[in-house]
């Protein structure tokens, strides 16, 4: 069972307390966008084998959405950060790079 720190309420939440919300930092597209932009936004996913950034919802806790950096091969959680951002914090990125020097940050 995953244990993820909620950056809002500070609870070390167990997986059953949370709902997974899929890939983080998707760029949204509005009504005037092209079909392929919508396709990218709605369906195309990075589906990383390795370090992945994703959204989580603290459903049975404070009820807030937040972000987490996780490895989809080892289930290691590198850190969590609030939802009000469009990219992962620099501190987290450099921490992951230190742990996983072979990681090619975001494609």
């Amino acid at each position, binding site marked *: *069972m995953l244990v993820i720190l909620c950056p809002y309420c500070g609870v070390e939440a167990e*997986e059953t307390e949370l709902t997974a919300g899929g890939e983080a930092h998707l760029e949204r597209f509005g009504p005037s966008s092209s079909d392929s932009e919508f396709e*990218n936004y709605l369906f195309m*996913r*990075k*589906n990383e*084998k390795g370090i992945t950034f994703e959204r989580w919802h603290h459903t049975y806790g404070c009820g807030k959405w937040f972000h987490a950096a996780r490895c*989809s*091969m080892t*289930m290691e959680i590198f850190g969590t950060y609030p939802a009000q951002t469009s990219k992962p914090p620099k501190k987290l990125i450099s921490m992951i790079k230190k742990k996983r020097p072979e990681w090619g940050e975001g494609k």
Partner: protein
Amino acid sequence: MRKYSVAAIVREALRYNAGWERAWRSPEPKKQYDAVIIGAGGHGLATAYYLGKNHGIKNVAIIEKGWLGGGNTGRNTTIIRSNYLQDSSAAIYEKARSLYETLSQELNYNVMFSPRGVMMLAQTEHEIRGYRRTAHANNLQGVETEFIDPKTVKKLCPIIELSGPRFPVLGALWQPRGGTARHDAVAWGYARACSDMGMDIIQKCEVTDILKSNGKVVGVETTKGVIKTHNLGIIVAGNSSILAEKAGFRLPIESVSLQALVSEPVKPCMDVVVMANTVHGYMSQSDKGEMVIGGGTDGFNNYTQRGSFHHIEETVRALIETFPIISRLKMLRQWGGVVDVTGDRSPIISKTPLEGCFINCGWGTGGFKAIPGSGWAMAETMANGSPSQLASAFSLDRFREGRFIDESVAAGVAH
């Protein structure tokens, strides 16, 4: 290839079984093939088989990173059914199911297809309505199913508890010609037939890159060297996104872990397959006597071939209410497989933006039942360079054009 037969058993019995030969060869790769298939699971091997049988393309290599049938082909709960709502799904799954009927004879390999009947329990009012609708749709599609009442459910499966407090059984969608098959044997049977046609099955050989020139595929780079080809099929459930990235395009796919478990073997107590989609649990009894139980997927991307324990707990807890008889069974093994799930929960059999490169993926949590039909349609697509009739609805374009085959709502979750 020596045929398996009663005469062969007698012959070998008289000479200490010394004459059995290997079912397939394990050659080193040649420099070039007419077609290369990445992934020697059920779908990949079936594709190769129908490429040779239906289209006469026999200079084919099937490349496998691990061992033959070691991915989801060897990890599923072996259920075969075709009671889908949408026409294009029903067509391909029914094609597969009907091919299973004669597969053992065709391959000269016993895949132990057992059309024992599959029932999908309706445990809420919504499910009753949904399954009645599916039964009507199936009758129009030529797929034999019917909606049956609780009394008939009990008659077909006496160990079921109809009036559980949380999940009463209100009826079921019944497909009498659905059932199970021996999953490994399906892969082995196809492999043996492919090898017999002169195809090369190359195991423990990982594709490290896909070679392109002027927007066309020209070969693959593997751990056993470069293999040239102008016709490439990617059939690697779970790892589809990774190979698509090497080929230079993206997929509407997420990889998640799906779990299953089996109990200790017990005497025969259940001769149908029961699926309970409200609780996302399904159960059947194998020929060895083990109760084979399938569970749900986790909500997050996962490449580990193991899932969260609480999902199994939920499945088993719910199944015990429907089948109180299993409450003291010990569970022998539990495992997971990495399945690739699309936005509309329907598969992709398609051309790709890279010319000469085709992809077959996205079978999600229900690929085993589709193996012969999927191989048939994929082979036709690869041989002609354009989608076959069976496959045309499952193209990659559908996500851009909004032509979804929405089985995620139609078929429930167990799919």
